[in-house]
């Protein structure tokens, strides 16, 4: 399992294809958002832009999860290896989490600068929200990237499958971030963090259990 994760990360480190294109894409979304909000931006707008950039770049990035395996017919080797499919899921999901974390390290500071918000006192909580949002999103996209890579029209199918399912995650993450970037109370944020944590647990478990049925040949 660790070997798969290490392999994927090594490819990424060598080529930097994924992260660099995602970073530029995230930057572009933030820019477009700026053009759409001509007046003085609010923390709500900043949170919305942050998570939109994350979701758009993340969905496109997740397409790549299994693409390399597909192109080189390695998936067959992976599946037939004496390895629990659930482990492949975990490795692939962690790979996505790492790449998206890098993306967040770029997008979050840019949001802070572009939208002129200052989360000074609550940086830790913002990191928690970002991490939980990242894990839940990666769990869902990894599971469905494995599906979409095997059917026609996969570029359209992945967002179509993923976006409705992550809507509760998106609502929770945007609401929590808006309060952290603005001036919400800790109690308000903790409710949303609970929703995010529940989402993460449910979908990581679902991916763990159901991945076997997706990759079975």
């Amino acid at each position, binding site marked *: 399992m660790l070997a798969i994760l290490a392999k994927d990360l090594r490819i990424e480190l060598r080529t930097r294809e994924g992260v660099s294109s995602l970073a530029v894409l995230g930057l572009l979304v933030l820019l477009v958002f700026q053009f759409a909000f001509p007046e003085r931006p609010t923390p709500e707008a900043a949170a919305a832009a942050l998570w939109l950039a994350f979701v758009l770049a993340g969905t496109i990035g997740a397409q790549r999860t299994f693409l390399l395996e597909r192109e080189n017919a390695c998936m067959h080797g992976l599946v037939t290896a004496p390895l629990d499919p659930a482990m492949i899921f975990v490795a692939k999901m962690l790979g996505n989490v790492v790449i998206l974390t890098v993306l967040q390290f770029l997008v979050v500071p840019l949001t802070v600068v572009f939208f002129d918000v200052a989360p000074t006192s609550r940086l830790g909580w913002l990191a928690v929200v970002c991490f939980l949002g990242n894990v839940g999103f990666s769990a*869902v996209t990894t*599971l*469905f990237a494995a*599906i979409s890579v*095997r*059917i*026609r*029209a996969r570029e359209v*199918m992945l967002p*179509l*499958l993923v*976006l*409705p*399912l992550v*809507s*509760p*995650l998106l*609502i*929770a993450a945007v*609401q929590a971030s808006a309060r952290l970037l603005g001036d919400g109370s800790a109690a*308000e944020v903790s*409710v*949303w963090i609970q*929703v995010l944590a*529940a*989402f993460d647990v*449910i*979908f990581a478990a*679902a991916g763990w259990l*159901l991945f076997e*049925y*997706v990759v*079975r040949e």
Partner: protein
Amino acid sequence: MKRLGSWAGPGLPWIVGPGMLGALYLIFMVVPTERVQGIVQRIFYFHVPAAWAAFLGFVVVSVASALFLWSGRAAYDRVARAAAELGMIFCTLVLLTGPIWARPIWGAWWTWDPRLTMTVILWTIYAAYLLLRSFGGADEAVARYAAVLGIVGALDIPLIMISVRLWRGMHPSVIGARPGEGGLADPSMRFTLFYTGLCFVLLFVWMLLVRLRVLRVEDEIEAIHRRIHPA
């Protein structure tokens, strides 16, 4: 399922057909007009039962999906597929009848009320499910993918419910508590609602059986085809 079909099949249309006529008679001729909302409130007797049928569709999809993954029998897959198609129809009916009522009562076609938000998210999940099936073709693997989506979609429902409630619950509500539902003062109103609901559920079952038969025949033709021309 086949046994249920042959048992309920011939009789069911003759319960649903006249039953629905009775429902229409109740809705338009018997039930008193709601005092505050006027005649447009009668759309509730279509709107709410359609929502029940849509929700029932979702339950059937997820249960059949789980059974399919567990047993691998194609019959469960057909049930899930037929239920998703019907659920989509009823969900669309809910989303169409809602705004017709909301416009004169709320003053807006659409608001981001928790229930509306949830219904529209469920609709998009149904849409994704059906698109997955139509893009994927008749491949056996696609049935498994769809089943995974059916199960994951069901897991998502409680989270969607919680998050849309919290989301709107923290905002000042523009309209106030949704009127009508709790306020079915007249017992004949409540009776009409439940009676129509029963009719809609039976209609759902009937349509499900009809659709299932077509899917089964398609599968068997495919099997015979493969036997004659083993490609």
